[in-house]
């Protein structure tokens, strides 16, 4: 079947848009979860007992040291060897959260370190407890300092979703590849996929920039 190239955007933009929504969905869910786990991980890494510190340290190193595909495959294929079989969506989410947590710990940790020591001293002089100081004084300031790396982190997470087609999660890439198989028009289809990612990445970048400006305003 020969399809004129100009018809392809018409035929496939619906599918690509659907894929984009699925990509955005896992990006948002995994970002929120990684953000929470990353905060806890960073706190543990900074103030936890020695053993916990070491475990978190090596967890971060492993997440940062292994290729993304390899991590995803360990979850999707690897675990089948031990009789655990995740669905594509589950595998996708587990990986994105595991990966995001590793990076989240580092981002959040440097955010906390950047808060001046004087803040701790001022808080304890006021009689605030350590936990109170951490979550009412330090963390809010750390979040502001973290905004720029956090924005790049969300973009990174979005870009990671390109790999999910490898575990048959029906995202943008999956749709683009299906389309390529049917029409033999990789040129236009991958261009559409690239555009979809470009628009989403730039939108996230803009949003992050706006938030930074807002946060910087009251500083």
């Amino acid at each position: 079947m020969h399809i004129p190239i100009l018809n392809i955007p018409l035929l496939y933009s619906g599918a690509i848009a659907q894929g984009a929504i699925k990509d955005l969905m896992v990006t948002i869910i995994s970002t929120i979860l990684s953000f929470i786990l990353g905060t806890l991980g960073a706190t543990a890494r900074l103030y936890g007992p020695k053993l916990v510190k070491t475990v978190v340290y090596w967890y971060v190193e492993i997440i940062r040291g292994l290729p993304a595909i390899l991590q995803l495959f360990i979850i999707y294929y690897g675990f089948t060897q031990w009789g655990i079989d995740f669905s594509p969506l589950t595998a996708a989410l587990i990986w994105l959260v595991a990966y995001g947590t590793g990076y989240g710990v580092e981002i959040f940790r440097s955010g906390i370190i950047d808060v001046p020591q004087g803040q701790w001293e001022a808080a304890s002089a006021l009689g605030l407890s350590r936990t109170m100081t951490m979550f009412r004084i330090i963390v809010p300031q750390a979040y502001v300092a973290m905004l720029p790396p956090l924005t790049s982190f969300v973009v990174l997470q979005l870009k990671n979703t390109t790999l999910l087609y490898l575990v048959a999660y029906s995202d943008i890439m999956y749709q683009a590849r299906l389309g390529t198989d049917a029409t033999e028009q990789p040129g236009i289809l991958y261009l559409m996929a690239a555009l979809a990612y470009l628009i989403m990445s730039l939108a996230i970048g803009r949003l992050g920039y706006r938030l930074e400006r807002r946060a910087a305003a009251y500083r």
Partner: protein
Amino acid sequence: MQAMFSAWVQYLPQLLKGVGVTLELTGLSLVVAVVFGFILALARLSRIRGLDLLATWYVEIIRAIPVLILLFMAYYSLGQVGIALSGMTAAVVSLGGFYATQYGEIFRGAILSIDRGQTEAAAALGLPSSVTMRRVILPQAFFAILPPATNQLSNLIKDTSLVFTISLADLMYQTYAALSINFLPMDMLLLAGVIYFIFYLVIAKFLGRWELNVQRSRY
């Protein structure tokens, strides 16, 4: 455990065959990324209107697109418009083209971080701008470049694993080939993980140490 180790011993040679391709790919892409990145940095810093805009657009757009899509575009899409690249070339073009944006921004930031008094002093002495760049700016920028540059190198080596999707026989590809034969996905993926992790540690820790020493002996 016993079983895993014997599987490792049996399949290590096959995986090591892939390591050669992985390293070759890393080396070639790194050269492209550094050279092209330097050109991008100079273009963005130049006062030639148009040139700086062109470079800025290139950086902003390419950075926002996932490497996997760039790879597919280089490998599949370009073929459709009559530029048929081999898998290796497509991989080097896309990885090099993407990491050039990363290295370009590192170079640009480092050059901008040099105190303006340095260029003024050089200008007042009558040094031409090429000499100023070579003898005054770059030697000082080098130290600001090293840490983020090694960081990107470890990202690059991880991202070479993407070429497995276009059937280049790298470490990831050999791993996948092995696990599809022996149905021991976890064992094979962990073995690959160990190899990738060694590279990561060598780059991050070894180079990191060396950097630290260079920095310490600085002037």
